[in-house]
């Protein structure tokens, strides 16, 4: 890539990170509003200008090293604001939701398996963390267990999901998330509507609820969770990226676009649907467990249909199937309602209108998924 393009792309990346930092950290209404406008302009810019397209191509087609942008950006923000508990919590929340939404993207964006029960699987992960929390198991194992249990419970739905299509499949998962919450609320073995306390994570002997102190550097303990979520997100982001750019990715796409045609060419449609559903749920479950540990508490009202819709809103607003887009969209959906606290009772209304406007002017999401190709791999 010629130097000029590289410089332009770096500039765009930098601007993106700065805008993200402003939205996550700032408490000034006008600053945030301006940053949001800037972000929207950036989205148009990336879609419409050639420098923007170069940048998008860079994100999409470079080698795996490009994923380093995520830790780089996050660490820059995290370290710069290492004492801001709330900002760091928002940052960690964004990372966790991004992780979950990458799971949803594997399901819906790639294989076309619709999942309105994201919040339920997120919840399963969380409850697993709550139940296993005081068994003394290592936290990382608990996180993994959260993912596996979510996937296992998801397996109840495999048969119905395989048999149905479109709106019918949507109903299956909608029914499941409603059922899940309703069940948790009336059944008291898992704390009922009251919810459960969750042990915080302890990794390598370090309790994550203790802030880091190194010499004069003192950081909020939320920085620990930012780091944990960041590691998880980076790993799974990379894996999901590999998945997309692989033979499996092509299979998943063909399963989504034309299952009958795919089957005739030997594609095992049911198998790939199951794989994507299970993999997705693992990610969502791990995210849920991480979230529960960070929040220290979970209750059924965290895991509603509305919550599922918000998760789906992240992948739709970002651009279905685009992994990168998940992160800015998660910032929009997770952080903005929090930032609107100053207008208290009007915030949901304003948020709804904001989403409507974004969709109205970017009907395919902020950053639609670019087509996969292997130009770099074959040396073109």
């Amino acid at each position: 890539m010629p130097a000029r393009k590289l410089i332009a792309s770096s500039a765009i990346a930098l601007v993106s990170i700065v805008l993200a930092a402003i939205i996550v950290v700032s408490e000034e209404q006008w600053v945030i509003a301006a940053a949001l406008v800037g972000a929207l302009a950036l989205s148009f810019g990336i879609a419409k200008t050639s420098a923007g397209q170069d940048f998008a191509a860079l994100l999409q087609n470079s080698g795996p090293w490009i994923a380093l942008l995520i830790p780089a950006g996050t660490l820059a923000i995290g370290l710069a604001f290492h004492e801001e508990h709330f900002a760091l919590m928002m940052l960690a929340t964004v990372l966790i939701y991004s992780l979950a939404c990458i799971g949803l993207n594997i399901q819906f964006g790639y294989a076309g398996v619709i999942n309105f029960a994201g919040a339920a699987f997120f919840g399963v992960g969380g409850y697993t963390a709550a139940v296993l929390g005081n068994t003394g198991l290592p936290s990382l194992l608990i996180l993994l267990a959260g993912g596996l249990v979510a996937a296992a419970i998801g397996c109840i739905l495999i048969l119905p999901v395989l048999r149905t299509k479109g709106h019918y499949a949507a109903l299956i998962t909608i029914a499941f998330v409603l059922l899940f919450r309703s069940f948790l609320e009336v059944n008291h073995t898992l704390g009922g509507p009251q919810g459960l306390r969750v042990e915080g994570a302890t990794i390598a002997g370090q309790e994550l609820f203790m802030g880091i102190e190194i010499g004069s550097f003192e950081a909020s303990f939320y920085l620990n969770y930012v780091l944990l979520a960041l590691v998880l997100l980076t790993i799974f982001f990379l894996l999901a990226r590999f998945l997309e750019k692989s033979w499996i990715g092509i299979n998943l796409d063909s399963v989504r676009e034309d299952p009958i045609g795919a089957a005739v060419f030997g594609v095992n449609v049911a198998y790939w649907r199951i794989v994507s559903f299970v993999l997705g749920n693992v990610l969502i479950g791990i995210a849920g467990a991480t979230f529960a540990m960070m929040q220290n508490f979970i209750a059924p009202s965290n895991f509603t249909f509305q919550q599922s819709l918000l998760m789906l809103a992240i992948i739709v607003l970002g651009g279905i199937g685009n992994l990168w887009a998940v992160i800015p969209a998660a910032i929009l959906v997770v952080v903005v309602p929090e930032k609107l606290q100053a207008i208290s009772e009007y915030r949901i209304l304003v948020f709804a209108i904001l989403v409507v406007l974004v969709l109205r002017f970017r009907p395919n999401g902020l950053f639609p998924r670019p087509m996969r190709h292997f130009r770099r791999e074959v040396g073109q």
Partner: protein
Amino acid sequence: MTKLFEAENVSVRFGGLQALDGLSLEVEEGTIIGLIGPNGSGKTTFFNTVTGLCRTVGGRVLIDGENITGLQPRHIYQRGVSRTFQRSRLCLSLSVFDNVVIGRQNSLDLTLFGNLFRRRRFVESVRENHEQVHALLSTFSEPLAARIFDPLHRLNMIDRRRIEVCRALIANPRLLLLDEPSAGMTPDETHEFMGDILKVRSDHPRMSIIIIEHEMDVIQRVADHVVVLNFGKKVAEGTFDAVVANPWVQEAYLGTS
């Protein structure tokens, strides 16, 4: 010559409609069968039945003597049957390469481990496959091969048709089913296209083809043997000349008498 494919008394119904009615058909290795018949006579349905998309209510379909009736499409594909569709079925949002390479299911590494963790090997296999797909596309059209990483929706109908055939050919099937490959092409284009298909086949002399066509020039040129359907039954068969001479075919199908 050995018998590759055999349909015995195959029957298919859609509600009250008998779409295939005790149809029997044999294909020797390395031959090309022309399948013709009036609209709605069951030709496409026959292909759908062979590839496992339609349920039979009677009869059997055999490949190499093995009964494949009722198997799932992907299992039938694994036995070397591939096809094109009358109405093209390609993934419009994917690239040309993706659309064709999907046809190589059997030789792709589809394990999670291989795809996620052995990236170097994956890149190598991309190169190999790219070479193969590119070579095949080039046989049909150089400009098309140059557009291997273009999204499919930017291509015109004839290029799409070519890609469908390439997808079906890429895995070197033993039995290739072509459903009206030349529809919508000018005679010139048709001629060239069929020439390309025959060229590929000449490298695989044991490949058999069943081709559905309404274009008699094509049938005359490529088919070793012609089968005529009407109302799901075989009403005539033989060499092209013999079939065309059949009075029923002349009257009801060709409309020439």
